[in-house]
């Protein structure tokens, strides 16, 4: 049950990022999660409810995108999507695939924030800094 500590870390990252944008209302936090990260999406969502309580992100959603486990198939010599983490093998030819290339992700990728249209100057500045 380490999901609460993970949820609190996500909250911290989101608050810090929101601070950089003038503390707008955060609608959602977007998270990329790989099945090999050891974090269970359902448990993380429950923990998120607890973590955000009483924080500036009280009403913010946590949007979890579960990304696939990928590996290089030694036989096909290409990157393949692994169907199940109980069976790490190429879905095309069945060869075991020790070389994992993706699926351990646990990354906050974006914040969905309320856009303050009444303050075009700030929105403009943000858009500029967002370009790169």
């Amino acid at each position, binding site marked *: *049950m*380490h999901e609460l*500590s*993970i949820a609190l*870390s*996500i909250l911290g*990252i*989101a608050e810090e*990022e929101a601070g950089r*944008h003038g503390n707008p209302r955060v*609608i959602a936090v*977007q*998270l990329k999660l790989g*099945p*090999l*990260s*050891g*974090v269970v999406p359902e448990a993380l969502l429950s923990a998120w409810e607890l973590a955000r309580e009483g924080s500036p992100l009280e009403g913010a959603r946590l949007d979890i995108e579960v990304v696939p486990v990928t590996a290089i198939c030694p036989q096909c010599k290409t990157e393949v999507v692994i169907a199940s*983490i*109980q*069976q*790490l*093998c190429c879905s095309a030819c069945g060869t*075991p*695939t*020790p070389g*994992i290339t993706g699926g351990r992700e*646990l*990354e*906050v*990728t*974006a*914040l*969905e*924030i*309320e*856009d303050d*249209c009444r303050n075009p100057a700030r929105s403009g500045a*943000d858009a500029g800094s*967002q370009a790169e």
Partner: protein
Amino acid sequence: MTVETRLVQVRTQVLKQNDVVARELRTQFHEAGVCVVSLVSSPGSGKTKLLEETLSTLGASHQVAALVGDLATENDARRLSKTGVPVRQITTGTVCHLEAEMVRQALAGWDLETLDFLFIENVGNLVCPATYDLGEDLRVVLFSVTEGEDKPQKYPTVFNTADLALLTKLDLAEAVEFDRAAAYRSVESVRPGMPVLEVSAKSGVGMEQWVGRLRDRRRQLFPGQAVTRSEEKPATEAGTSASG
């Protein structure tokens, strides 16, 4: 009026803080020339017993120390101190795993440069420890013959993050009609190519091979170094007579 929203890109690793500390620890361990081995398993699969025997055996020829993680009690540390090597307990309270920062704090005041091996026994848990890098060189996952042959497939993540699997309590294999082939298949399906060693800390079966594996790992990591920091014995290439 509908609320206008927009997206701002973030791209921050959630475990960044732990990863930073783990990286620092790894550098510190390498600079000090200490080989760090962590043990993960479910509660009751024999981590402490294995460690007890490992510290005694390896302690005869090398400078070893251990950190042991538990939710509560200092029992494991007390038990392991009887081997005569430095041992410290990390009590995590309600936290179900060790994190790199806990390791760093527990090491305060220890001179790593005097050590050949440092063992870190994680909290008995096959789920949460998988997520946290502790800066170790070798992560060993234990599962005992009494736990069921499909343990790896039930907990694929922790097996996937480990470098070596130890099948423990081998002395009980016959009594529980342990299916060796099924266990190996299960390991292979979640971590293709991971080496598996069979041991019984009680009877001593497989222990020499396990300890030999540890010595080999240390030699790989620090090829230029003496076999041990303690009184150097003439190096025996086979590496097996050192335990005598």
